[in-house]
């Protein structure tokens, strides 16, 4: 009768109190949290965009800062989701034992992990929108109406990287462990997936690797929308982001069940 950790998730609206708990904590420090999340990507975008951009004629046919804007939205959303499920999620699961407390109520671990996933996606949506507001203020987008489509893509990006990050959370013995994920997964994606320069500038082998990485697909959706085109192969990119996020969530749930409920 041993529990099967790989049973499909039971999804229910019971996750809402978990989401709400995290929201209430965030709300207490909302303004500094938003500014803190915004500062780093904004400075990269403005510094590199104007500084480095002034040395370049144009990238992919547009001013460098407009090229960089789409990458910044994606990587800022990715970072926000990743930090939330890794560091904050780990605090709640392992350090503060908040999850243990919740598991003694009618909520199940499936509810808790789903709540964390939705919360991290929500928080990363706020980060993505914050950067978009800067972009709109600087008029870096080609078409405002088309750039509004970036918002649902940001939700997908947040979902994708929250799901992936939850796997790391499930297996981590301590905060230090997350450094591997940043060094081996997040940083390579930032450098290979087209945040700062077109993927086509790289050798073929690196392009092939990039084609499998989710951030590439995020950027392939956001950049055209920013520069005033409809993305090509949009459904492929959408499906890749959903697949990474859903697989991550499923694997993370199985590993977390094993970690907390055995």
């Amino acid at each position: 009768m041993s529990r099967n950790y790989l049973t499909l998730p039971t999804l229910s609206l019971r996750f809402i109190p978990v989401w709400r708990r995290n929201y209430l904590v965030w709300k207490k420090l909302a303004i500094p949290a938003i500014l803190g999340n915004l500062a780093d990507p904004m400075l990269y975008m403005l510094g590199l965009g104007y500084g480095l951009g002034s040395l370049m004629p144009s990238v992919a046919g547009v001013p460098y800062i407009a090229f960089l804007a789409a990458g910044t939205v994606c990587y800022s959303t990715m970072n926000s989701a990743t930090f939330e499920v890794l560091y904050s999620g780990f605090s709640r699961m392992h350090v503060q034992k908040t999850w243990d407390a919740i598991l003694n109520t009618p909520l199940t671990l499936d509810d808790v992990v789903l709540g964390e996933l939705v919360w991290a996606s929500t928080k990363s949506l706020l980060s993505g929108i914050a950067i978009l507001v800067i972009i709109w203020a600087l008029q870096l987008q080609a078409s405002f109406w088309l750039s509004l489509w970036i918002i649902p893509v940001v939700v997908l990006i947040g979902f994708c990287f929250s799901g992936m990050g939850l796997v790391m959370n499930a297996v981590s013995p301590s905060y230090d462990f997350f450094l591997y994920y940043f060094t081996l997964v997040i940083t390579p994606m930032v450098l290979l997936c087209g945040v700062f320069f077109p993927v086509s500038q790289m050798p073929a082998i690196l392009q092939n690797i990039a084609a499998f990485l989710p951030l590439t697909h995020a950027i392939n959706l956001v950049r055209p929308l920013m520069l005033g085109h409809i993305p090509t192969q949009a459904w492929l990119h959408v499906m890749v982001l959903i697949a990474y996020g859903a697989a991550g969530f499923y694997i993370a749930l199985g590993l977390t069940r094993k970690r907390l409920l055995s």
Partner: protein
Amino acid sequence: MSVLSAQHLRKSYGDQAVVDGVNLAIEKGQCFGILGPNGAGKTTTLRLLLGLIAPDSGQIQMFGHAIPQQAREVRQRVGVVPQLDNLDPDFSVIENFMVYGRYFGLSKTEIAQRIPALLDFAGLSNRADAKIQDLSGGMKRRLTLARALVNDPDLIFLDEPTTGLDPQARHLMWQGLRRLLNQGKTIILTTHFMEEAERLCDRLVILDHGRLIAEGAPRELIAQHIEPCVTELYGENIAHWRDSFAAQLCARHENVGETLFCYSSDGAALMQNLHTQTHLRFLHRPASLEDVFLKLTGRELRD
């Protein structure tokens, strides 16, 4: 009918049977104790009963529902005080009630109505807006208990509720638990403190190596396993005294380090003798649950 019953519970990790054939039946309104040395399987038993982990074999019924299959429904009527406080440090005292109550699907108004009584129960009425970090250990423990009552549970699990508390805080906790019992609640607690079990529990089991080795009311267990009086003798000459008098004055005796434990039915003759032995220090007392516990589980360290 039992509020909670378990038959033939087994749970192993690797080769080690942590819970090995446990049977329990707990009646409504009882305070039921689960005692045992470190590593005896107490916490695992609680986690099984709560449906947090699935047993390898055996059945559990709580309020007529099968556990762990229907644990979600049943937990609506259950409160849990874990071994380590897991109050939410990001919230104040009142916010802890609010957030925790929502996990049970309670509305804001329902929770708000219950908060004054819960604060009063925890003795924290004047600390409603305090941060968790600013509370003492005893306050946190009482708040954890009060938080477990937010859904007005019929059955309350407490895992070592008074470990680490000073005597004042411990007595306050006991008073709180007695109030709950007077209200007709059922309590299941694990503890290392025999005094606590003796005071609070109607019935208890002693668990060792995952098996039940004794079961009954505290008084019954003492009467069953230990002579009514225990005399502890200390001093350098106890060996000499033992060889001269122990066989004659004690029903049973044992040496533990520098101490001689004498068990007797009334101890009058023993007392008379000891008052003439001015070089011996001694303590004469009624037999306690601790004597039973040590007799059954042995005196070696378990960690």
